[in-house]
């Protein structure tokens, strides 16, 4: 299988701030490769480097077999880039934006219409509307259409689902999945751990370093302890009580519950008494499967 991106030991600093440290990874053809990490982890910097917008201080990066620094002109013809911030012309209409990006990339909307048809059909009824007046989800669809209109070989999506409602997020990932049919490789970043499962490979990134790269399923399986979930009405109080309990290694909030691990890797029944004594009634503790987020927190702790 052809390697679409080969990165080795990329380092980048802005003044005293180290944005990226020894980043190495490969992306295969037709991958949906996700970079998962919190804000400030270095995702945007890395994506800008891949999009030829920044030159790394150190390291080598080959994109589509081309050197990202010296062959940037050739590379720019073959990548579609969607920055994290909505970067279309707000004072132009939906249609005008799409036509503009099509002409700039030397193509026409009709030529590659089949590629964007499904995405664009959602916003086509509003094609006369100014882009600035679209809702968040529609803006993202338009931006994706614009980034795709020249049928790039590599699609770079920097946090495409940030600030988008839950329904649109699901739709968005569904669209990305369908793009595989067109042999378009996608790298995508997101701060949402639950979206990792929709990629076929993910890199967990934190403080400019990659913690782990693997199949998302394998990443989950890398979790080394037994995980338990605790539910109780007062979550905030619950966390503090749990963290005070000596038998517990970690306690992190997760949705409406708290995920905990024990030193013994077994459910410690005396915990119930401890909770009751601390004024927490009706706590339910069950064993649960670790998610990407649990593994991420575990890796962070080991750093």
């Amino acid at each position, binding site marked *: 299988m052809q390697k679409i991106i080969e990165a080795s030991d990329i380092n980048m600093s802005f003044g005293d701030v180290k944005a990226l440290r020894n980043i190495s990874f490969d992306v295969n053809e037709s991958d949906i490769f996700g970079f998962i990490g919190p804000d400030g982890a270095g995702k945007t910097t890395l994506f800008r480097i891949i999009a030829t*917008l920044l030159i790394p201080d150190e390291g080598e990066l080959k994109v589509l077999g081309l050197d990202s620094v010296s062959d940037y002109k050739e590379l*720019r013809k073959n990548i579609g880039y969607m920055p994290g911030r909505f970067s279309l012309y707000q*004072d132009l209409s939906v249609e005008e934006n799409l036509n503009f990006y099509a002409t700039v*990339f030397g193509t026409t909307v009709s030529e590659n219409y089949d590629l964007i048809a499904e995405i664009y059909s959602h916003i086509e009824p509003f094609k006369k509307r100014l882009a600035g007046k679209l809702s968040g989800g529609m803006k993202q669809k338009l931006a994706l259409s614009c980034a795709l209109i020249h049928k790039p070989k590599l699609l770079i999506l920097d946090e495409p689902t940030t600030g988008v409602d839950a329904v649109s997020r699901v739709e968005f990932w569904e669209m990305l999945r369908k793009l595989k049919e067109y042999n378009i490789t996608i790298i995508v970043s997101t701060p949402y751990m639950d979206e990792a499962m929709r990629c076929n490979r993910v890199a967990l990134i934190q403080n400019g370093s990659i913690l782990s790269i693997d199949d998302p399923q394998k990443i989950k399986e890398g979790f080394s302890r037994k995980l338990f979930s605790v539910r109780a009405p007062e979550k905030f109080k619950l966390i503090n009580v749990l963290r005070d309990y000596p038998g517990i290694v970690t306690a992190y909030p997760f949705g409406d519950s708290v995920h905990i691990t024990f030193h013994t890797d077994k459910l410690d029944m005396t915990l119930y008494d401890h909770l009751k004594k601390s004024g927490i009634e009706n706590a339910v503790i069950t064993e649960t499967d670790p998610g990407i987020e649990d593994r991420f927190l575990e890796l962070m702790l080991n750093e």
Partner: protein
Amino acid sequence: MKRFLGFVKKEFLHIFRDFRTLIIIFLIPAAEILLFGFIVTTDLRNANIGILDLSHDEITRQLSDKICSSGFFIKSEDLLNYSEIDRELRKNKIKAVVIFENGFGRKLISEGKAVMNIIADGSEPNMASLVTNYITAITADFNSGLIQKPGSGNILVRSEVRMFYNPSLKGHFMFVPGVITIIMTLVCALMTSITITREKEYGTMEVLLVSPLKPVQIIVGKVIPYFILSIADAILILILSWFVFGLPVKGSIILLLAELMLYILMSLSVGIMISTVSKTMQQAIFITLVGLLLPTILLSGFIFPLENMPLGYEWFSMLFPPRYFITVIKNIMIKGTGLLYVWKETLILIFFTAVSIWFSIRNFRIRLN
């Protein structure tokens, strides 16, 4: 090429979408022409003055009538004594007081000279010097009339002044070239510097950079719409000043338009140069206003004559292109001279254009950071 045309089309869309800016571009010149023409006039008309006549004779009456019937002055106050002068000036009703000494007419006839005082309000220096100049001129005229009367001696030399190119010294001959220069600087430099930094600020530059568009295409594509707009604007100003003030273009219109295009091109390239060094629109506006518009107004000879400046300032003003352009269009429009007389300034403008284009292309970042 198709890419490039697509880009130009997009720029036009931006401009026509932003209706307010469009109105400003075309209304500012009209408003400024009319403002300068009718309000900020340096011509004196119907200025109020007071007269303190301590002599009250035939001659003082004749002279004060002559002053007040000239159309430049209106006698609004007849003062009775010196102490009133200060009071009336402070009231701000009158611009100056003319004082005829006691026994003015008698002294003039018997001794051949008499003293007339003009006290002007120095808190408005321009007005004060205008008023005193006009009154002095009227008095001189009156003098020569007296002298030429039979039997009152004779005077041999009379100077007759004639103003070439602008016989009645009309102010708008002066400010129309100035306004054209300011408007061109404003529209060209400010608008272009904003339009590129806007792409940076809104993040669209990021996407433009990751496209096959070449820097030259982006820059030229930005320039063309404003170039067309500015030429339309310049022609509008010329037509307006011709209809409203009857300001003629004495020289070749073709040459005038060619010089205009050169100056527009220069301002555009300066605007782009500014946009390549500024990160935000505010920064671009600030640099343009302070670095370009102020020198255009202050150091171009538009309002303050360059010759009157301290030497250092005059040299400093040479760094700013507007002064050369004002010289050029004044020469062409008012004096009707040809290229032969303005080639030096033209070359300097070409030089400025070349430098800023070179600087912009060198400075245009094909990447972020």
